[in-house]
C-alpha cells in the first residue's frame, strides 16, 4: 500500500469498473469481448451452419433433438486504461494552500484511486501527464506495483506552465478507456476534436472536471483578478462583479458538460471539497452522469 493513499485505496477496494460495451478481441481479461468462442462461459445455442467448428456441436442436444446445435460461449478480454493528466500551473490552486486541498491533490487522489480499481481487474494502465516542462509517459502495464508507480509519478510532478493535452491524443489507442483529469481551462476544443475519431472507433472517454472551492466561491472583498497560468490581469472582482463571475463560470461548466456529453464522453465534476472515495465510486458505477444537472449550477461542488 503506497503511503498517503492508504485510506483511499481501502475505500475503493473491491470496486469493479466494467466496460460499458464489448471490447475488441484482446488478451483474456474481465471485460466482455466482442469475440465469441467455444471456451468460456456458455451463453446460447445456435443452429449449426456449414463452416462451424464441429467440436462446438452439442452432441447431447443432437441426440435428444436430432438437430445439430452449436454451443456458444462469451469471451472476456483485457481493456487498456489510459490516464491523461493535466499538470498545468492552474492545477496548483489555491497557490498558498496552507492546509487546504489543491486541485492537484484531487487529481492525484482520483488518479491513484481509479488506477487501483482498474488494476484490480488486471487491466493495463498507462499514463500521460502534460505540464510546462514536457510530458511524462508511462506505457500500459499490469504488473504489481503499477499503482505505486503512478503515485510516485504524480507526487513527484510539479504543476507549471501551460499544458496542451490535445497533441497527446495521437499517442492513445482507439479502443481503450481514456480518463482525462483536468480543470477544463486548457485546449478543450482541440482536445475534443482530437478525441472524436477515437470515440467513433469505440474509445470510452471519461472527462473529470476538477474545480477548486475558491473558484466556485471566491474570497469576499475587492480584488483584481490575475490569471494564475497566464499572469494576465483581468477585471476587478468586487461585490457587484461577483454575481456576474459566478454566472459566467457556471455557464462555462454547463457548456463544458454539454459539449463532452454531446461528444459521447462521460462528464463528471469533482471539487476540492468533494468526498473523493464517493466520487470515485460514482465514476466507476456510472452514477456520476446523473450529477451532470448540478454541474451547471453556481453552487458547485459535486461528486
Amino acid at each position, binding site marked *: 500500500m503506497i503511503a498517503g493513499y492508504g485510506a483511499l485505496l481501502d475505500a475503493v477496494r473491491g470496486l469493479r469498473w466494467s466496460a460499458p460495451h464489448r471490447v475488441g478481441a484482446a488478451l483474456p481479461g474481465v471485460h466482455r469481448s466482442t469475440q465469441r468462442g467455444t471456451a468460456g462461459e456458455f451463453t446460447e445455442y445456435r443452429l449449426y451452419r456449414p463452416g462451424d467448428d464441429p467440436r462446438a456441436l452439442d452432441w447431447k442436444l443432437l441426440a435428444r433433438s436430432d438437430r445439430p446445435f452449436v454451443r456458444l460461449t462469451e469471451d472476456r478480454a483485457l481493456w487498456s486504461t489510459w490516464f491523461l493528466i493535466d499538470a498545468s500551473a*492552474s492545477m496548483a*490552486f489555491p*497557490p498558498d494552500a496552507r492546509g487546504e486541498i489543491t486541485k492537484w491533490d484531487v487529481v492525484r487522489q482520483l488518479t491513484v484511486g481509479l488506477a487501483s480499481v482498474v488494476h484490480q481487474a488486471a487491466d493495463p494502465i498507462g499514463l500521460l501527464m502534460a505540464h510546462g516542462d514536457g510530458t511524462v509517459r508511462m506505457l500500459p502495464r499490469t504488473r504489481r506495483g503499477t499503482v505505486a508507480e503512478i503515485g510516485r509519478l504524480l507526487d513527484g510532478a510539479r504543476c507549471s506552465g501551460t499544458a496542451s493535452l490535445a497533441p497527446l491524443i495521437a499517442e492513445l489507442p482507439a479502443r481503450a478507456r481514456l480518463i482525462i483529469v483536468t*480543470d477544463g*481551462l486548457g485546449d478543450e476544443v482541440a482536445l475534443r476534436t482530437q478525441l472524436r475519431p477515437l470515440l467513433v472507433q469505440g474509445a470510452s472517454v471519461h472527462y473529470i472536471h476538477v474545480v*477548486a472551492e*475558491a*473558484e466556485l466561491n*471566491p*474570497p469576499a*472583498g*475587492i*480584488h*483584481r*483578478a*490575475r*490569471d*494564475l*497560468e497566464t499572469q*494576465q*490581469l*483581468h*477585471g*476587478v*472582482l*468586487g461585490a457587484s*462583479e461577483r454575481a*456576474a*463571475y459566478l454566472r*459566467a*463560470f457556471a455557464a*462555462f461548466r454547463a457548456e463544458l458538460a454539454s459539449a463532452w456529453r454531446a461528444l459521447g464522453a462521460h462528464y463528471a465534476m469533482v471539487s476540492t471539497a468533494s468526498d473523493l472515495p464517493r466520487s470515485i465510486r460514482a465514476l466507476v458505477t456510472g452514477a456520476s452522469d446523473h450529477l451532470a444537472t448540478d454541474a451547471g449550477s453556481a453552487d458547485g461542488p459535486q461528486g
Partner: protein
Amino acid sequence: MLTFAAPWIMWLAGVGVLALGTLHLLSVRQPPELLLPTARFVPDGTSRAVARRPRPNDLLLLLLRVLVLLAAAAAVAGTRCTASQGHTMQLVAYDAALPARDTVRWRAPIARLLPAGNTVEWVAVPGLSQDPGGAFVRALQYAGGRVLDDAGIDSVALMVLVPSRLVSRRGWDAWRGQWAGRVQLMATDSLDQRSRGSEASVALRPMDRIPDDVVASALRPADTVGRGATPSREIQLYRQRPPDLLAMSTISTMRELVLVDWPIDGRPEGWVPRDRFDTVGAVVARGQAVIGPWARVARPGAALLRDSAVTAIAWWGDGEVAAVERRLASATGAPRACLRSVAMRVPAGTDLLLGTAAEGLRRALRAPCGGAELLLDALVASERSDGDRRERQPLLRADALRAQAPRPVGASPPWLPVLLGAIASLGLLTEWWWRRREDAR
C-alpha cells in the same frame, strides 16, 4: 516650548502634511491582486476606482507618515526645546557711576515694586544720571543677548533709575522710539527718601545796586518766591565786585547757593584780559545761541582751565569758553554752592538777554549747581502721554528682539536632532513592515 532655528522648514513640513493627508484620504487605492485560474470569467471593468472610504488602517498609516514627516523636519530645522512657560525679564537700569552700596540698598525696595515671577537683572549704564537715553541703548544690547540665550523669555520690562534732576533729555527723546514697550521711571531720590525741591523756589539776589541792570532782569526767575518763604536756591549776582567766598559759611538757611560773577567790564576774577577783543559775537549755552554786541574782553586763564572743579557752561561762537562754573567745597551743614563766572561785556540798554534766544544762557546760569535742572516729573509726564497716545504694549516682546538677531544655529539640546532622526527612521521601518504585511494579506 519648541522653537526652531529654521522655522521655514517646519512650515514646509506643515504644507507636506496637508498634501499627504489630502492624497491619503482622497487617493484611489488599487485593490489587492487575487491569483485565480478562472480569472477570465471576471467581467472586464475599471480596475482603478475601488474604495474611497478609508479603512481604519489607512488613518493609522496616515498618522504614522505625518509623525515621520514632522520628526524628520524637526530634526533638520534645528529644534530648541525650552521650558514650556515663558517669563518676563525685568531690567533695572542704573548709573554705572553710582556707588555699589546704593544699588545694593535699592534692590529690596525695587523688588517689592516689581511683579512676582519676573526675573530681575540689573544693568549699569554710563552717564545715566546726565541723560537717561543711554538706558535704552544698553537695555537693547543686554536684552538682545539674553533672549537668544534663554528661549523662555517672552517679554522684557524696563525700569530706569534716575535722579530727580537731569541735565538733558536729548538722548531719551532720540532713543525712546527704539524701545517698543513702556518704561518705568524711578527716582533714586525717592529710594533714598530725599525730598525734591520745586523749581519755583529760586530767588535772585543782586549783590550790587545797579539801577536797570539788564543782567539782573535776565536772571530773575519767572516765579518769585512768596514773602516770608524760604527759597530752595538763591542766585547771588555780583556785577561790581567778586563774591566773598569766605563769607558763605554764615549762610545756613539755603539748600543751594549759586554765585554768578558777571562783572560789568566783562573780566571776571581769574580770567586773563585780552589785548584785542570782539564787540559782536555769539554766545552758545544749552544748545541755544544768542547773537549780540557782546564784547569778548577776557579769556579763561590756564589755571582756571586746569582746575578739575571747573566746567564750561557757555561758549563763544568760535568755541572759546565764555562762562564757567566752579564747584565750591562745602562744609558739613553748609549749602551746596557753586560760582559761575561770565566773561561777557553787555552794553547798557540792550534787551537781547531777555529774548528767547538767550534762554539757554539764562537757564545755564540759573540751573542748580551741576547743571541738572530737568525734573523727573516732566519725563514721567511725557512718558505717560506718549504711552496713552501711542497705545504702546506694556512689555517689549522678546520675539521682536530675536527677529532682529541672527538666528541661532543648531538645536538645543544637541542630541535632539539625533533623537528626532531616530524617530523618523523608526517610523519608516514601521511603515515598511506594515505595507509588507498588508501586501502579504
